[in-house]
């Protein structure tokens, strides 16, 4: 499982795990659902169009077995595509702990980007909500900027309740900075571990 791979530090607590908003996966799966219906729609069209208008004389009843095989194959491939979409959705997440934020970006099956930034290195966290649907359903883009020398921006679109995520991270950062201010050695031990 994922948390065994991440290896949380001793005493580190997970505050929230955030996945993209349900509307994102719903729109993607709607495409798969429409693809699933496509062969039936084509069969329906062939059935309702008069034979005179068709270029070839097609008698569907003669090809029942072949058509069933083709539809079963199409359905299986579409379902595999739908499960790939679901996998990418579910395995793509933000893990917010009381010490750091871990961003797991499942781009493709063999393309996975894991970014970790410590809360004390966080410089700025901002969110944006653009569009009518995003405003009504309360999802948007969360962007975090750190004091890292390398890639210092972390950005994910389609996160639910971006204001809440910002608040959780901001509160966790304030508490972390207070702890480090009172006990600076805890930062050294956590970096070493």
């Amino acid at each position, binding site marked *: 499982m994922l948390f065994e791979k991440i290896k949380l530090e001793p005493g580190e607590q997970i505050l929230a*795990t955030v996945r993209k908003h349900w509307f994102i996966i719903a729109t993607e799966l709607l495409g798969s659902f429409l693809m699933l219906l496509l062969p039936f729609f084509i069969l329906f069209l062939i059935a309702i169009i008069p034979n005179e208008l068709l270029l070839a004389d097609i008698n569907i009843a003669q090809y029942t077995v072949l058509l069933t*095989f083709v539809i*079963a194959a199409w359905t299986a491939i579409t379902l595999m595509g739908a499960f790939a979409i679901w996998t990418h959705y579910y395995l793509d997440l933000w*893990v917010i702990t009381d010490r750091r934020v871990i961003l797991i970006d499942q781009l493709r099956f063999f393309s996975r980007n894991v970014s970790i930034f410590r809360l004390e290195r966080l410089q700025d966290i901002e969110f944006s909500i653009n569009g009518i649907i995003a405003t009504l359903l309360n999802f948007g883009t969360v962007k975090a900027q750190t004091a890292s020398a390398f890639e210092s921006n972390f950005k994910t679109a389609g996160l639910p309740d971006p204001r809440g995520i910002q608040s959780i991270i901001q509160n966790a950062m304030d508490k972390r900075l207070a702890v480090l201010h009172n006990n600076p050695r805890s930062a050294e031990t956590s970096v070493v571990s």
Partner: protein
Amino acid sequence: MLDFTQLGTLQLSIDTIVQAVFYFILGIYAIFSGILYYHWTAYSTDIKMTTYTLVVYAGTTFPLFVIMGILAFIV
């Protein structure tokens, strides 16, 4: 002697094509299922959701391959 003039034409029955397509899709399915299983067991955060997803995946796709196999080899 091999008659090379016959190489230009290739006759395959519908049954052979259907069986070849079945083997091809079955191969893709086997590879995809392995990759899916690996990702869910390695990177998921919730064992219940992992089990649920894999059961639904097998429950929806496996019967289709049984139907395809029956149609390709028996009917």
